[in-house]
């Protein structure tokens, strides 16, 4: 159950987090020494800067007037959906660049998260009933080792092994770059969709292999405590079939902590997805972030940070609300 008071508090909290993320975006560029307007002009026209040009670029970048004045101006343009103009892809706006790359990231992130949860939960249900056994210790140690790998390192290994080393009939198993082949056109066609899936295979496997162990280990530990709970003992004493105890009593309860951990894990999967995108030159916003870091395209860096933060905050908010539906005993107030 969700009370109105709870909802109200969560929304206030959501707004505060949003303002903090926005403020980081506003103050960081202004805290560092040097005038960004001069930097841009020097990089574009050399050392001869005309005062009028400087004035123009400064007002374009919202660098004129008092800090408060700039802050308000920044907020106003933000709520009009304006995040500035990219330095590198000038005159393309930051919003348009992000909009064209965000879908790829959301596709990777969403699919990887869902697959990780499904695989993590299935494996945990399997070993949770064999605690202390051989399969438990083997699978647990594999999970621990996988979970402690850096995402991009595993991505690079997969590129070498499955993208280059293994050759069948003169063909490599998987492509090592881009989201689809150069010879297909985006559209709702079989060739496009199969090309997208084929290209996303290695990035997805990398993300899932590193993300699922967290869920497996969490649920395994939950099962190990639930198994000794009174209501499970009672069910056993009543003589219920083991599969029934498993399905109706233990697994359902052991899945609950997964819901809260998804929200936290989502943040780390975002980081993983960004790095994996760089490894596989996958055209999501993680790859764009990398490009903008390389080209010192600060408006784009700021914009990507803002958009991904908002996405994660909203995802967290939704998971919080879902939790109350998943566990009817929970009263959120």
């Amino acid at each position: 159950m969700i009370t109105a008071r709870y909802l109200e508090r969560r929304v206030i909290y959501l707004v505060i987090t949003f303002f903090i993320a926005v403020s980081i975006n506003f103050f960081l560029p202004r805290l560092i020494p040097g005038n960004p307007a001069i930097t841009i002009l020097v990089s574009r026209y050399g050392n001869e800067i005309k005062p009028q040009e400087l004035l123009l670029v400064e007002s374009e970048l919202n660098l004129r007037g008092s800090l408060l004045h700039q802050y308000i101006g920044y907020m106003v343009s933000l709520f009009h959906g304006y995040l500035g103009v990219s330095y590198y892809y000038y005159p393309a706006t930051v919003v348009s660049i992000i909009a064209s790359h965000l879908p790829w990231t959301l596709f990777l992130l969403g699919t990887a998260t869902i697959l990780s949860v499904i695989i993590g939960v299935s494996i945990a249900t399997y070993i949770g009933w064999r605690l202390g056994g051989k399969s438990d210790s083997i699978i647990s140690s594999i999970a621990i080792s996988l979970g402690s790998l850096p995402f991009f390192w595993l991505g690079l290994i997969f590129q070498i092994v499955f993208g280059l080393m293994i050759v069948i009939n003169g063909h490599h198993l998987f492509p090592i770059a881009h989201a689809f082949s150069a010879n297909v056109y985006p559209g709702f066609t079989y060739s496009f969709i199969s090309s997208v899936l084929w290209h996303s295979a290695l990035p997805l496997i990398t993300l899932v292999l590193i993300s699922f162990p967290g869920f497996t280990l969490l649920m395994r530990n939950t099962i190990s405590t639930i198994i000794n709970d009174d209501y499970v003992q009672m069910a056993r004493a009543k003589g219920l079939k083991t599969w029934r105890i498993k399905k109706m009593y233990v697994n359902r309860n052991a899945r609950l902590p997964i819901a809260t951990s998804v929200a936290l894990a989502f943040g780390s999967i975002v980081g993983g997805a960004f790095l994996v995108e760089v490894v596989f030159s996958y055209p999501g916003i993680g790859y764009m972030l990398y490009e903008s870091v390389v080209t010192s395209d600060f408006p784009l860096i700021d914009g990507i940070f803002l958009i991904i933060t908002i996405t994660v905050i909203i995802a967290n908010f939704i998971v919080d609300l879902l939790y109350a539906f998943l566990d009817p005993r929970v009263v959120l107030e």
Partner: protein
Amino acid sequence: MTETGYIVPDASSSPHFIKKRSPLLEFVIGIWKNGKGKVGMIIYAVMIGIAVFGRLLAPYSPTDVNFPAFQPPSLAHLLGTNYVGEDVFSEFLYGTGVSLTVGFVVAFATMVIGTIAGISAGFLGKVTDDVIMRTVDVLLVIPGFPLLVILSAYLPPTIWSTILILSILSWPFHARVIRSQTLTLKRRAFVLASKLSGLGNFRIIVRDLIPNMLPIIFINSIFVVVGAIVAQAGLAFFGLGNINSVNWGTMLYWFDIEDGILFKAWWWLLPPGLGIMALGIGANLLSNAVSETNGTKRKD
């Protein structure tokens, strides 16, 4: 014999008295006696050994480019050479020092900030608790890696900037764990007894709370070590921080930039990742050992 003149049984000769060792030593011995703990400790001992003495063991300078590029492992170059002909084995030995320094400095800073914040929140309660915990909530929900990237992009590219940023961002999780520990310990009889006997807050915290939190502080700190090393490697991979410093992260950065993939230079790619994996496995083993010997669990 004591100053008051009473006869006190000699601890070493009487079977009823066990020599009292310091709690810290007791804690370390407890982990060592646990099978998993022993393996974990050995892994960390070896890694720290490489970090400290690696420079002396390295056969070449890590920036010596007088060798052919992209050589597979051989007797002269145990882990082959990289794109400009630097010896990968020497690079790894030097790099371990930098990577572990990042990990341990960040872990130390995180433990100091997080423990102070967590105990203040749990012990003082009220407004202090609200302010600290709301800050923690906000920092935990902002996705860590993008925040790291944007901060690093604006700060000067040195390894100390990276350490600073990682320290600022890693304490919230630890603070939350310490706060909940403080809340339960606060109600325990021995803390109440100290309170009634008139001890001040500071002494209660130092004498009663912190010693009881040592296991959890220890577990959290080793996970921060690994987390910080992975995060630094991730930042380096994005070309952030000082990319000319030799560490595990920059090894992977140059591998990617200089097409190590196309040369299938696995000897250059494997060492840093396996190093990180060893530390990760070691951390998990140590954490299991601590929870088995001290009855504490790492809260996820």
